[in-house]
């Protein structure tokens, strides 16, 4: 297990080392030019957030209905990763918006809902940290409802008039001139981010396992 983790970590590090060269070689977008290159990590981080939401939602439901401690560990680990990747998504989006829209932030539906998602999962972590006994179930419920916001955030740009680009941007990317290269670079970055998500999830779960082991040792010592 440890060997696999190290081997995959080396592969992922190599992918992240190569990513700037691939992004540099990708064609410029005609209206935004250089600043559009934020897109490659921006989109990839939201794919990692999507993975985190899916894992957290399923693990939370598993824990809530079956009471499995493994599911609880997966839920906590993925919720923390949702916070980390969403934070980067919000910051990178804001930096991109500064040039593309001339503003750092706008309270339009997509951005506002993404910000709310960050607050929901920060709430999850705070509940786990300070909620005391029984907070696991409350946090699991938050995990399920937090994950349920994902599809709404994704479709918000199609349902409401916003300044954020629509979801069709990605669907039509490969068909545009030079878009195939951009598509390949995006997919490469998405693969690197998903692998990073998996590695961080494994590392974070190991921490939860160690904490569980420590709690068992404390209980055994008291007996």
């Amino acid at each position: 297990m440890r060997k696999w983790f190290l081997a995959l970590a080396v592969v992922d590090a190599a992918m992240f080392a190569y990513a700037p060269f691939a992004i540099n070689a990708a064609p410029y977008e005609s209206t935004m030019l250089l600043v559009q290159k934020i897109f490659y990590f921006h989109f990839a981080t939201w794919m990692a957030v999507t993975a985190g939401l899916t894992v957290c939602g399923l693990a939370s439901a598993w824990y809530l209905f079956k009471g499995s401690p493994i599911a609880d560990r997966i839920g906590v680990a993925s919720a923390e990763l949702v916070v980390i990747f969403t934070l980067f998504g919000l910051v990178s989006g804001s930096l991109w918006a500064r040039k593309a829209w001339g503003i750092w932030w706008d309270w339009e539906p997509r951005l506002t809902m993404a910000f709310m998602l960050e607050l929901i999962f920060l709430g999850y972590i705070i509940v786990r940290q300070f909620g005391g006994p029984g907070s696991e179930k409350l946090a699991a419920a938050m995990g399920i409802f937090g994950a349920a916001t994902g599809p709404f955030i994704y479709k918000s740009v199609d349902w409401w008039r916003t300044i954020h680009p629509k979801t069709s941007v990605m669907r039509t990317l490969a068909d545009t001139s030079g878009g195939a290269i951009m598509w390949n670079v995006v997919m490469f970055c998405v693969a690197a981010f998903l692998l990073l998500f998996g590695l961080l999830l494994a590392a974070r779960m190991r921490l939860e396992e160690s904490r569980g082991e420590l709690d068992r040792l404390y209980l055994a010592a008291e007996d």
Partner: protein
Amino acid sequence: MVRRVFNALVGMLLVAGPLWAQQPPNAGQSGFVPLDSMPAREQIPAAPLLLSSYAFFLVLMLFYLWTIWRRIGKVERDMQDLERRQETVKR
């Protein structure tokens, strides 16, 4: 006669109307436009924003890895302390 004058006046109005409404052509650019007189959106340089985005990602990931490593270290130290205390009690 009156009819001819009327037709001529109407004809002049029909021709003059569009000419009157036509916008005067823009004056040609007589020199370079300084950057600070461009709209605010055009003045923002892209490179610092792009570099900030990627640098923030690197710092965030390194910081998060450091927090995981520190927390695992703390739990392992607590385990060792507990084992030492248990051994002391046994003696």
